[in-house]
């Protein structure tokens, strides 16, 4: 095969905890193989050495929470051929989108000695609310296997094998016995996108919904079932209002139990 030109990879951070870009470093064994195939041109968490754009692939972590973020994401978009958002923050607004349900001025007053120095938006929103996004990778944090799959598919010009179906299908394929049916544990699995590798159900916990809404989430039916399991409206509201609180389906469901 003819030697293919190494694409330039950039990794960007917006409002986030850095956990998702850490998944790239966490690739360990595969990381060296990856660096043979891509040129890491901008990745401040890994190296101070930066190369100027444009970039072939940009991975964007974090949500948009300040006026400065809005300006910067537009610049990133302009410099990027393919833009992939990674993680719950970048794809739905993240846990910091809890601010969307309250008054931000109250928060800044409680947290900062000088709230007048804080220049922030009233909402935390997904990158796709501001610029065009080519692919969204879910999770809090993302799965390193899925990250490699997206990069691999992009390098080889094929469709990434990233399912949009429920977490239940992942549990059943793996042989994990349903926590909700067998133990009565409230589980978000039926409305949550697969991809985590059944982390919580595999450890006898209900799904917390880190991967956000699946393709066609019937949140109302699941919420009604949570009620049958003995959950009160506040519990139900909180189940839907976590890492992906601002994802449309979860936001609407949580608001109907507030």
């Amino acid at each position, binding site marked *: 095969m003819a030697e293919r030109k190494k694409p330039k990879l950039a990794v960007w951070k917006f409002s986030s905890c850095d956990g998702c870009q850490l998944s790239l470093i966490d690739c360990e064994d595969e990381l060296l193989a990856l660096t043979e195939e891509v040129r890491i041109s901008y990745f401040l968490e890994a190296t101070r050495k930066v190369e100027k754009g444009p970039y072939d692939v940009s991975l964007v972590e974090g949500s948009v929470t300040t006026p400065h973020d809005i300006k910067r994401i537009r610049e990133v978009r302009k410099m990027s051929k393919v833009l992939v958002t990674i993680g719950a923050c970048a794809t739905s607004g993240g846990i910091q989108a809890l601010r969307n349900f309250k008054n931000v001025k109250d928060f800044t007053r409680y947290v900062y000695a000088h709230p007048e120095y804080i220049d922030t938006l009233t909402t935390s929103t997904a990158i796709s609310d501001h610029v065009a996004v080519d692919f969204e990778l879910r999770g809090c944090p993302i799965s390193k296997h899925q990250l490699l799959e997206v990069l691999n598919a992009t390098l080889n010009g094929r469709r990434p094998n990233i399912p949009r179906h429920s977490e239940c*299908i992942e549990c059943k394929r793996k042989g994990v016995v349903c926590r909700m049916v067998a133990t009565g544990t409230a589980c978000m699995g039926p409305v949550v996108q697969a991809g985590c590798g059944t982390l919580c159900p595999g450890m006898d916990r209900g799904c917390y919904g880190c991967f956000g809404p699946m393709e066609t989430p019937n949140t109302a*039916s699941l919420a009604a*079932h949570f009620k049958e399991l003995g959950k009160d409206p506040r519990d139900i509201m909180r189940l839907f209002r976590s890492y992906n609180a601002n994802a449309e389906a979860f936001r609407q469901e949580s608001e109907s139990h507030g």
Partner: protein
Amino acid sequence: MPGFDSPAAAAVVLDKGGLDGLIAGLGAGGFRVIGPTVSGDAVVYDDITSVKDLPAGWGDEQQGGRYRLVKRQDGALFGYTAGAQGWKRHLYPPRQTLFTARRKDKGYEVLPPPPAPPPMAFIGVRACELAAMAVHDRVFGDKTAPEPGYQRRRAAAFVVAVECGQAGGTCFCASMGTGPEVTAGFDIKLVELPARGVFVATAGSSAGADMLARLKVAAATEADKAEAARRVAGARPAKIMDTAQARGLQAKAEHSRWDEVAKRCLTCGNCTMVCPTCFCSSVEDSTDLKGETSERTRTWDSCFSIDFSYIHGGAVRTQARSRYRQWITHKLSAWHDQFGGSGCVGCGRCITWCPVGIDITEEVAAIAASDQGR
């Protein structure tokens, strides 16, 4: 399952030691022995090495959306009803590599497949599960689309069936004509007599007879046989599916009940995953980073996922009602046209393991109850 050639074999009685000898004998004969065991708060079918791995003293309570293990007083080894998943995951695994290829010159070469895994022996297969295997034999034996992997695993498998001693809360095998009596499709059939801690065993094939001949057994008396027959008589399920109504579903494509069930249906796909006859899959291609080798994989998929019906231009069944309708109508109605019988064996798993407890028998009855929607 090397031929069922001696159905009239004489019944014998073996104790738990004899059953242990059977498990050990199969293991020594090169089989991977798979049987019921308790894991994750349920009975699952997994690797076992002795009777100690069996769910001694465990039964289950099943209803729509609810499964609980319960202690039994009689110490029965097979006192549960249907396990969390059937034998499908062993005969038709959730993820199968179809082939691996490597780039060569301007084309590619297909790499030789890895050596075939050892044959499997299944301990504790119920009547409905034998019926499910028979359904898959038809599906995967289809001349236009044969499935050699399934056929190889199935032909090599040794089947120890166990007749149910009681019905589960969601099963309806009698309606579907699939149980509870075990009549064919086994190498050895067992009926457990828990009060005495023994089993009445019958060979269904020469391989089964050979295995039994190697074990310490006693001839079954008429009293033993009568006791065994009484066990299965008490296993007829209360739940009923009207098969004529079920078959008529495809004529009710616009019934308003589809909208009702869609309000509850999570489209999560659990019903299709636990169904012992659902066989739909998707095929994925993957590559290594360099693009030098690639692999084609088949994974279990579901008619409840959007991508499953995605064709050029979009998904065919975007609404929950159309996906639920597709599943149940294919299973109960169109399956007759396609494979010459129903796709449902009445195991009740889709009812138990539906998180919100949608009951396939209730849906059929509700749709049949009115003549609308034609």
